[in-house]
């Protein structure tokens, strides 16, 4: 089963907390976005393996944009 991790709001990618191929638990932070001078962690909604990271640090993402794919 694939699950997409989406940005909950527009902002820039401040930190990427995981690597591709890494196993993650539900609730673990995947990336930290920066929006309006605040850092917002985006957690995984399911456990699994990071299949793909679609963003790099410094990228700008819009709300609902896919950040990563978990398998």
């Amino acid at each position, binding site marked *: 089963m694939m699950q997409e991790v989406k940005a*909950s*709001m*527009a*902002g*820039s990618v401040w930190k990427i907390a995981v690597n591709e191929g890494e196993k993650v638990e539900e609730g673990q932070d995947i990336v930290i976005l920066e*929006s*309006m*001078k*605040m850092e*917002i962690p985006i957690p995984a909604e399911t456990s699994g393996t990071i299949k793909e990271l679609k963003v790099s640090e410094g990228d700008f993402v819009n*709300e609902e944009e896919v950040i990563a794919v978990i398998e």
Partner: protein
Amino acid sequence: MIEKILIANRGEIAARIIRTCRRLGVKTTAIYSEADKDAPFVQMADEQFLLGPPRVNESYMNIDKILSIAKESGADAIHPGYGFLSENAQFAAVCKQEGFIFIGPTSEVIHRMGDKIEARKIMKQAGVPIVPGTNETVSEKEAVEIADEIGYPVMLKAAAGGGGIGMQVVHSKEELQSAFENNSKRALTFFGNGSMFLEKNIEHARHVEIQLLADEHGNIIHLFERECSIQRRNQKVIEEAPCSFISEKTRRKMGKAAVQAAKTLGYTNAGTIEFLVDHEENFYFLEMNTRIQVEHPVTEEITEIDIVEAQIRIAKGEKLRIQQDDIKMQGHAIEARIYAEDPITFFPSPGLITKFQVPEGNHIRNETAVKSNYQVTPFYDPMIAKLIIKADTREEAVSLLTEALHQYKVEGIKTNIPMLKKIVTNKVFQMGSTTTSFIDEYYLSRD
């Protein structure tokens, strides 16, 4: 002479500065990023220059670009507003080197107050009480030793910090150890300096600050205090003047201490000294803000002094026209900050404002950065407006504020207005018993 001012800022404060400049017959130059091309402040100025892309390093923090625009526009002075480059000592120095009047204190003073440890030393020297804590930056090991001595809870702070970043109250050794590394890292990312220091955490404290005006001829006055205890994420939400908690005696003592501090420092222009006041009215130096503050309107409302005008006159080299005894407080003023954010999680809520309608009235002052059909971008601070109420008494001001908040309309994005409504109808707030933990104790805990 100051005939044209470049405003190195954006949003409501840029609009606020332009208003006073117009009244004084001073021309204005607005600078704006691509994200702000439709922002109301841009068209208010006499002329407009595009800075570049939205990111602050390429726009409002880009010193080279700002100075090249200043030269091109023929401005003779630069007003930094608050945030961005306003407390950047290098910016103040470069403005002066390039022949512009920087509307603020000298680069040297900004530098000394920007280093929180240096600031503590200077205040101690000036005889201003400081919170018990370390006189130097500390390692994690030293922090643990000192915390044992002064007793938990302690406040861990970044030496170069500001805006609540790199700052945390810790209650135990374990918490201190994990918080030290995290906050030091964050401070390094945000301020380029990960040095930390410790202060005793003053519990049930109020945040009370003194507004100062100092000319370049050695005259220093204060414009009384502002009470700013209502904060979320260490940032102010509601501010008022005067503070209903302190006695006349404490008010005089705090004013005197602030003036003495400015004298010791050789301070010029407008500035604010922030204090923590405990339940016994002991006050301790917190930090100095070497610029105009977001909440300056409440002071303007009770003293009838235009602080931006005073800044410009001081920068021109004029002497203060008023003495301490001439300044009288009249009535009560409250400011509520309107943030584009979720009222419960405080997470940012950028997006399209479909309708923006502010309440109007004799007792209402609006400072706004947005309008209807306006896109709030995620690049800058979430504050979109300020609502200021002036009345004869605090009780009346709170009641008028409550009414005004009910009339305030922002549609399309989430705002903190529901939170503001809850605060102003809270009994503890209405009694004036506000401390910096008010939101944790009376707002968040209820939901």
